[in-house]
């Protein structure tokens, strides 16, 4: 329980860091760290397949995509970056206060739920759920992937006309 508490606190802090940090590269690294911590939490809760997906896709692929986009779009001079950083800090200074208020609110306002932990081993296998119970989700995932692929093709086809 203590380890889980530490993991959750670290995850919340890394999420806050990814939002608050001024450099995009640091934000991408913090985001990957958040994914890694979420992976460990999932693994400890007994969700190894989702944890592997989270680690390989969110901590790996999405970080690579972020860093590629950052390297392709960052061309501001240092002075302008500094000015924008000051402006950004002014806008983000309320976030820690809001988080502290929300944490205090969640700590004091607890609705009694009467939850019980389930019997271990009573659940279905994830492969059975994925391929038999939730078969329509696979169809949806394929459609989403195709839509994404076509979207990227159309976007890059359109940006090529600018000659840049």
């Amino acid at each position, binding site marked *: 329980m203590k380890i889980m508490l530490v993991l959750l606190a670290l995850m919340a802090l890394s999420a806050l860091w990814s939002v608050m940090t001024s450099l995009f590269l640091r934000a991408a690294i913090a985001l990957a760290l958040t994914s890694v911590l979420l992976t460990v939490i999932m693994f400890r809760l007994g969700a190894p397949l989702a944890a592997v997906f989270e680690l390989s896709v969110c901590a790996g692929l999405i970080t690579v995509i972020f860093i590629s986009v950052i390297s*392709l779009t960052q061309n501001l001079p240092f002075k302008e970056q500094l000015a924008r950083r000051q402006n950004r800090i002014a806008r983000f200074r309320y976030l820690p206060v809001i988080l502290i208020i929300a944490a205090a609110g969640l700590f004091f306002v607890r609705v009694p739920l009467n939850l019980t932990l389930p019997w271990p081993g009573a659940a279905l296998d994830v492969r059975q759920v994925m391929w038999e119970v939730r078969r329509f989700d696979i169809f949806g995932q394929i459609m989403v992937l195709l839509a994404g692929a076509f979207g990227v093709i159309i976007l890059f086809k359109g940006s090529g006309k600018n000659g840049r």
Partner: protein
Amino acid sequence: MVADATTLFWLFFAFAALVAISGLYCFLVTFNLLRMLIGIEVLIKGVTLLVIVAGYLSGQMALAQSIVITVIVIEVVVMVVAAGIILGFFNLYDSLNVKNARNLKG
């Protein structure tokens, strides 16, 4: 046992809510497209944590894992398409400020 499950739920719910609030605030406050994407990503992390905990507490971990895998697939597609849109936007305006999108014609 009852107190354990309820405490566990509130603990996870509190941290998932804090992560989601961070992402939502980032999404609402910033004008930078890339930072908006980071906000969406952080928001999805909070939601994923909550789905896994719901699966753990209801004994439907297989269903929760299936839903999380679906969420991850959708998340990747959203990120890839958004990255393409950001690159196209940057090619057009040399900036990532979303205020420039007011000049776009429909």
